[in-house]
């Protein structure tokens, strides 16, 4: 009996994984296949990017401030407060910026995508698209995935910047550090080794590859659970919850492995 249960659960998991990766493959493949739903893409970029700007600005600014505040205690004890800019920039660009932007967007956009597609599923609008000769993955999933892939790195860069600005506020008013000194320290960290076509600093690579991957995770999780919705409005609620849980956990887990890989490949 127990073995049967384990067997069934394993089968369901493998089947779900297969469905998820099939959806991901199709959605990404359709980016290069006509017709291109440009209007839908721009609309989604607006919803995902511009719509999430507020929470990303707030999150980034306060995270930068609290990070500076906490580290200033340790750095002051060691007499190393002049490197606070380096510390804030490194933490924000490599780790906190992508992860926090990812988690915020997962909560706001991932759940929105799941709710919208879930409602379309339960009100037969997805079936209507099919009967009108349109592939729902191409029309609904591809624009959302592409918009997320484009907009999450943009949001992360903004998040990084306001985080560093938040750190600057604390460095100036709490530690009394001149702004010029703070920003010199920031650039030392971010542009260590220069920035040329042949050498892109590790911080930039990590800081941009991660949100790109997280963008894919968030949009695909939302689309997957949205399209799989069944059971009316209760199903829509479940789909949104599952999306936020799945996307948040995947962001944190994938972040660890991605960091390992990026450090191994790009470390100087």
């Amino acid at each position, binding site marked *: 009996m127990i073995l049967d249960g384990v067997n069934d659960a394993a089968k369901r998991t493998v089947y779900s994984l297969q469905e998820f990766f099939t959806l991901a493959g199709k959605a990404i493949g359709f980016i290069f296949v006509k017709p291109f739903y440009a209007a839908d893409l721009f609309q989604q970029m607006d919803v995902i990017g511009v719509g999430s700007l507020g929470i990303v600005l707030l999150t980034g600014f306060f995270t930068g401030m609290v990070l500076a505040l906490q580290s200033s205690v340790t750095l002051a004890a060691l007499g190393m407060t002049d490197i606070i800019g380096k510390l804030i920039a490194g933490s924000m660009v490599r780790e906190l910026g992508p992860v926090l932007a990812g988690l915020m967007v997962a909560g706001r956009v991932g759940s929105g995508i799941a709710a919208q597609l879930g409602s379309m599923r339960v009100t037969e609008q997805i*079936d209507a698209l099919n009967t009108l000769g349109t592939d729902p993955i191409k029309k609904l999933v591809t624009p959302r995935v592409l918009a997320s892939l484009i907009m999450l790195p943009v949001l992360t860069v903004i998040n990084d910047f306001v985080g560093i600005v938040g750190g600057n506020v604390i460095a100036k008013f709490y530690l009394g550090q001149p702004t010029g000194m703070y920003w010199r320290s920031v650039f030392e960290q971010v542009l260590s080794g220069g920035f040329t076509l042949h050498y892109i600093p590790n911080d930039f690579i990590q800081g941009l590859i991660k949100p790109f991957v997280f963008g894919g995770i968030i949009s695909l999780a939302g689309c997957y659970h949205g399209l799989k919705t069944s059971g009316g409005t209760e199903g829509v609620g479940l789909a949104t919850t599952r999306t936020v849980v799945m996307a948040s956990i995947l962001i944190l887990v994938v972040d660890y492995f991605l960091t390992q890989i990026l450090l191994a490949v790009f470390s100087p």
Partner: protein
Amino acid sequence: MSDDEDDRRKKQDERRHPSEKDETSMPRRARDSGRVRAAIRTELEEVAGDAADKNTVKTTGRNAAQTVIALDNISLAFDEPILENVSFAAKEGETVVVEGESGTGKSTILKLILRLLVPEQGRVSIDGEDITHLTFDDALKVRQKMGMVFQGAALFDSMTVYENVAYPLREHTTLTDAEIEARVREKLEFVDLEPDKVMDQMPSELSGGMKKRVGIARGLANNPEIMLYDEPTSGLDPLTTATITYLIIKLQRELKVTSVVVSHDIRSAFRMASKIALLANKRVGFFGTPEEMTGADDPYLREFLGGF
């Protein structure tokens, strides 16, 4: 009420045009509604009159007509069997109404015709082409021959009425914007909606009957040769039900569209059907004309028809 007020009302009445006087006690909306109801009644009486002749006319045409939709020994199961050896066909211009109790797989039949589901056994043919084993992309092309009206209309709620009806035209034709607008207006007028009033409205602003009519207009936009209806009259009041039934009959008569209608509404089914397929115990228990159905001695049929 004061005498002054009475006098004022009398004077107002005298100033009114004679044609207005008999209706002044009714609110304007109620008067409009009364006129619409009367118009529908007249139209339905015409349809009922035509219905007496329709079978003779159709029988003559039907012999020569080609089979457009054919289900041949279809079996389908999910966790348990849904359909077993289901067969019926719809010839060009015919309206086949699929009747049956809830949960007997009526809507599943539409999904099989649309190739949204693939049967485990048997074949579904459209215009003689077996669509059972088509690829997803080829199935999308076959679906362009069909228009579908969903139980809840399934209008895209982020689009206006105009965008909904224009959607299949923008997707699958190279018509110009002006041509698309002309087609949208034509289809909305066909379903008795005023284009200028409804085109810019969102689906959430429409009544249930209007949504169904926009759904029919969207289904018709591409001039399909096949129309499929899933419970087109469910959840509607009797007069709106009559209007939708009338529209389906109008489509059949004026555009010669082949239709499959899934319905619980036996009264409407008798009005619109060329043939009725009754699903019972996962099979087609009866397939024939409404007259053959009422004349049959089968106890289940008699029970199903009840007092009709």
